């Protein structure tokens, strides 16, 4: 399966730091990364996934409006015939006391995996490797101390 990952911050959200760090982490882990940057629409995600034959679409949201921004997202992907793995991560609800409930909400919206903002990039990378059945490459340059 394709090792190309499409990354972006959905909606009107302009938080760029996290996505920049994710881009670096996935690149260093050997993935081909297409970073759409901040303020990316559902359609832009879909177009990029088609254009690059993406194996995974990674959505970031940090400003608390993720649920609204992701309504119908998987319909858009489906109508573009995209069968990429989809992840979402970040501050997904305002005041996320109960992350399990938040996770359930986004699983129901169609995401394969849901991460909170404390997740290390390594965790998402390890998950994606499993989901795409990829083994760590020899070009792997990231040293993880744990």
């Amino acid at each position, binding site marked *: 399966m394709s090792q190309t990952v499409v990354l972006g911050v959905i909606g009107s959200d302009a938080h760029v*730091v996290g996505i*920049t*760090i994710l881009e*670096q982490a996935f690149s260093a882990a050997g993935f081909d990364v297409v970073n759409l*940057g901040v303020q990316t629409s559902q359609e832009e995600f879909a177009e990029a996934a088609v254009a690059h034959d993406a194996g995974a679409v990674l959505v970031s949201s940090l400003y608390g409006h993720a649920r609204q921004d992701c309504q119908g997202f998987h319909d858009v992907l489906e109508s573009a015939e995209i069968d990429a793995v989809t992840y979402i991560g970040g501050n997904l609800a305002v005041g996320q006391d109960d992350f399990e409930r938040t996770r359930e909400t986004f699983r129901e919206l169609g995401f394969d995996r849901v991460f909170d903002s404390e997740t290390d990039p390594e965790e998402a990378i390890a998950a994606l490797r499993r989901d795409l059945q990829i083994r760590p490459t020899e070009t792997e340059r*990231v040293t993880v101390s744990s």
Partner: protein
Amino acid sequence: MIRDERLRSDELRRIDREIRADWSTGAAVEFEEAIAFHDSLPASKRFADVLESADVPLLQPRAGVPRLDDQIDLLESLRTDGGADLLPTTIDSYTRDNEYEKAAEGLEAARETGEDTLNGFPAVNHGVSGCRELIESIDAPIEVRHGTPDARLLAAITFAGGFQSFEGGPISYNIPYTKRHGLAETIENWQFVDRLAGAYTERGVRINREPFGPLTGTLVPPSIAIAIMLIEGLLAATQGVRSITLGYGQVGNVVQDVAALNALQKLGEEYLPDEVVVTTVFHEWMGGFPPDEARASGVIGLGGMTAAIARPDKVITKSPQEFQGVPTREANAAGLRTTRQVIDMAIEQEIDIDGIDEERALIERESRCLMDAVFDRGDGDIVRGTIRAFDDGALDVPFAPSDSAKGAVLPARDDDGRVRIFEWADLEMDGEIKEIHGARLSRRADTEGRDQSFRMVADDVDAISEGKLIGRPEPRGDV
């Protein structure tokens, strides 16, 4: 293609007419009458004079609420309870996007419900008379702070409304704030703003202009910030601005911060024309804050200490409630007073720290490299050079959301906590400097027993909010 040339008078008038038609309150702007209003203001409200004549750093908070009477109350309490020397009026997000209709609805809702339905003061909607009521009510100079890529109408109304200082610039209010505004577009917009400030200046009303130094607020290497400050200062000077305050955001390493502020002042005076009065502003830490008022007060305390040593002309303070977003007025005043106490206790002390001159020399050398890259690409024209340098990544800002910058350069702290460049991408920098940064980062990697990698960047971004300066890996269980 747009160039670094003074906007012609007929162009100034044409654009002025056009943009004043964008919203009903534009009609009330009348230049000659505005000059008369400024002339009527007492010396204590002349921003440039107050700032330039101060012999200790002046303190200024951030603050903006939708309703005029609330804004007056807020600023008055920051002046009296907080002891602010200079005051701000922060503009709401709709106005920053030129959505005056939405701002009007928000203001209406605020008036009806008494709640702050906008995240700032919609100065365009309040119009010239509303601004003047604010200026008349507060016995201190007030600056307009915003983040607006196209701030032409905002400038026309607030200048006529009596404000004598205006933050922002074509790079600093574009690259960190918005995704899709082209640099050529924002430079053109800001040529108008600066030319308007220049027109006032020529009539004796010296409008102070303040490029926004912290940029993306996240580990910005000093030389990148300084180069952008110099460019925006030069652009403003071309349009006739004569009072320019160059900004810099604290990175948290005292030596580097003091060195950067020294370099900023020195290069500002060197690069900008002699007729410009150059001052500096130091922003207390703009990155993530600890989710705890006590720890946040510690971050603010370190900022005050740095200011006492570097002695910038102005300090923009943070509040202990920074983590949770907009602070209460009490917390805002508390941030001012914590800063004041530290500065006043430390400023009379002779605190000369070793290594500041070396660090300053390094920052200056880097800044000159970047400025040369800009001048070279413009064949002497700084506007063209700036556009081309951002286009090919020779000039870049880390973590920039804008499509106008590559955003490919990445910073990391060295073993002493100074911000170095880990990923240069296409940033134009001489090889020796790259080696220096590489060696410093390598020393940190040795200390931490890990390879240099983006993990350091990620760890550093979170470090201060987690209580440290440097994002070291957690010690292993067996150590």
